[in-house]
């Protein structure tokens, strides 16, 4: 089916209605001339895919920035480096250089042929000094996390009923089970099942943000130690909220999960280890995200 669609895609015309309006030609002379700035006196670097195999980069560097970094920036040449972001790698190896080019202009733009243009990328601009790259500015990262990471690798389905704010996730096999009379598995209480459901939702909301994962681990560890250092917990929570203050859904799920963890009796979950595995899986591949057997009870 995929090949068939690809072929049809190629054949598909790209007519747009607006073109049919403008085929009449521009008959009213456009007299107005508008001046727009060549640059804005800011330091900026932008990278974005133009296609799945090409990237567009633009930049602007100011003398203010150069003078703050170098004694004599006159005639300086610059290097733009493109890095692939490999979220599964340790922090030190997370950004891997994939392309580099030299530029002379402080304001400019360029296109780069790059076969993985839709993957997570970041650009940095700087100066080579004694064979060492001195970074001046970096772009915002794009496509982080990649859709390839976001996509669950399993047969995951969701049921969304009208007017409900969020859906319920399940695997096809689970749904089939649910349709039979409910049977409680011997080593799992209904509460644990609920907890796993919360975890799944939690991960589906934010599998991508490793910073949150790190903070989350810290919070849970503090709570596990029954720490009396409330200030420390509050500080971590504040940091957590700073990192992702907009995502109230995530916060709700997190708090709900913590409440389950604190109330749960019996064997504790090795949550730090579990989340480390999840973090790595979420960064490089989501293959294991929803495998229940990885949760150690």
């Amino acid at each position: 089916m995929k090949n068939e669609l690809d072929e049809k895609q190629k054949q598909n015309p790209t007519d747009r209605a607006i073109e049919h309006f403008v085929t009449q030609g521009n008959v009213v002379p456009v007299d107005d001339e508008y001046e727009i700035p060549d640059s804005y006196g800011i330091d900026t670097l932008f990278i974005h895919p133009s296609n799945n195999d090409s990237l567009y980069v633009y930049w602007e560097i100011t003398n203010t920035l150069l003078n703050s970094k170098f004694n004599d920036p006159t005639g300086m040449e610059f290097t733009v480096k493109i890095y692939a972001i490999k979220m599964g790698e340790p922090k030190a190896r997370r950004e891997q250089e994939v392309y580099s080019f030299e530029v002379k202009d402080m304001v400019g733009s360029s296109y780069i042929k790059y076969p993985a243009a839709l993957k997570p990328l970041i650009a940095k601009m700087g100066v080579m000094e004694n064979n060492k790259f001195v970074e001046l500015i970096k772009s915002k990262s794009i496509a982080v996390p990649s859709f390839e990471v976001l996509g669950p690798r399993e047969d995951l389905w969701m049921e969304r009923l009208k007017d409900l704010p969020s859906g319920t996730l399940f695997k096809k096999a689970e749904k089939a089970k649910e349709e039979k009379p409910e049977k409680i598995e011997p080593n799992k209480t209904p509460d644990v099942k609920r907890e796993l459901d919360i975890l799944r939702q939690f991960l589906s909301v934010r599998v991508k943000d490793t910073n949150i994962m790190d903070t989350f681990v810290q919070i849970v560890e503090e709570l596990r130690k029954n720490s009396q250092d409330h200030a420390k917990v509050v500080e971590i929570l504040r940091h957590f909220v700073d990192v992702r203050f907009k995502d109230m859904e995530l916060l709700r799920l997190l708090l709900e999960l913590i409440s389950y963890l604190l109330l749960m009796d019996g064997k504790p979950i090795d949550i730090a280890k579990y989340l480390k595995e999840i973090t790595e899986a979420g960064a490089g591949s989501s293959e294991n995200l929803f495998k229940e057997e990885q949760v150690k009870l």
Partner: protein
Amino acid sequence: MIKGYWMPVLHSHLPFVKHPEYDYFLEEHWLFEAISETYIPLLMAMNRMVDEKIEFRLTLSVTPPLAEMLSDPYLIDQFKKYVNRLIELSKKEVLRLSGDKETLKVAEFYLNRFETIKTFFEGFLNSNVLNGYRFFYEQGLIDIITCGATHGFLPVLRVNKRAVEVQIELAKETHKKYFNKDPEGIWLPECAYYEGIDEILKANGIKYFFLDSHGLMDGVPSPKHGVYAPIYTINGVAAFARDPESSKQVWSSKAGYPGDPVYRDFYRDIGFDLDFEYIKPYISPDGKRVYTGLKYYKITGEESEAKLIYDPEVAHAKTKSHAWHFYTERIKQIDMLSGAMDRPPLVVSPYDAELFGHWWFEGPEFLYNIFRETSQNDTIKAVTPLEYLGVHPTNQVIAPSPSSWGEDGYYSVWLNEGNDWIYRHLHYMADTLEKLANEYKHLLDEDSVANSIKRRALNQLARELLLAQSSDWAFLVTQETAVEYSTKRTKEHISNFNRLLGDFLSVGIDEKFLEWLEYKNSIFEDIDFKIYSSKYV
């Protein structure tokens, strides 16, 4: 027995074009032609279907700039003049052609048509096209969805997340203003998807959007049902993907139905064909010939020079056979797909609305005839997205691939060497406005003349940014059509923004200039610059 579903989707959009500084401005005619040739004929077809008890379902986007133009008193007034001129010209033509029986029939057809359109506009629609959309929306026969506030090309704007969020939030507000309820679906501008946009849609209560075929087929994991069932993104927003087969049958000017020899020829128009002195009052005042809307010839043959006279009755009869062909092709398609699916297949057919009627003159009649078939037979049921999700709330979870419906399937139509210069300005403007909105969020609340002017200036900065963001300008530059106008419009808004910004930050605001911009670039009258402030600042 229902074997499958068909979901027709019409994307209605035109960029905001308003030029009160000119008595006659060609680009304003885009709107007038779209109203008289597409929007009103489609609404008339819907009205007819209701009268004839033909069941139909349509999903229609009405983009915020279009809604704003359709409600603009100046443009409504201009449209009325436009229709009156068409009626006047048609009457002259009926007299001129009294000795030419074959062509006279077409001239009479036009006269009758324009008078009917005028009556429908002033009567049923009460001089506002949106009244018609609201009428069928409230009856549940159509689902009206929104789009980006000014059809901004969201992937390239995302470097400033607030810029994208405002495109969606303002679209939602505008939809509510004109249709009295929040939109539940969206047509992403240029069908352009990127990772994370679904999170913003979800935050705005949007339940579904559309993808081009490869956006879904290249998603992860592969969709079990191809493009023939919707999916949920990981944020729980449903995505429906375009069926390439049914698209091609209508989109393609050569292989598709619109190229049939009996249909009206788009290009042969009396604005170009008739004696200059005679047609002069109905073309551009500077004497340049333009389309008038009166076209007497049929396509005839692809390479034929000698065009034959158009026969509306024959053409309309042809829409019946084409509708039947389309309908039976869908049955074949659905039969073929059914074997591999555990539910009735869904065929999603999105088109630019303005192709129906404007480019393909008989298009609205074609749609009417398809609905006649689906209504009479229960093999294929026409549905809206929410109706489908009501019956099939369980769908696969997939992360769609970045994509658009442009040539090559990604972003190059809107980001290439011809138009890339636009984006550094758009990014700077969005960053600047966000900073200003954060800074002045509470500083101008006190009621004073000075504060009022500053607030108005900030609001106009927001309008200029939004208008510059319209993807139409970059698209037209790429297509090498109306390049001068598109470039001018982009530069105009960038220039206005920078001039106003300079005034705001230093010498003081030129009130006359501000007033002029408020009148001319008047989109989103009620906009509040604070919408650009970061939410938790």
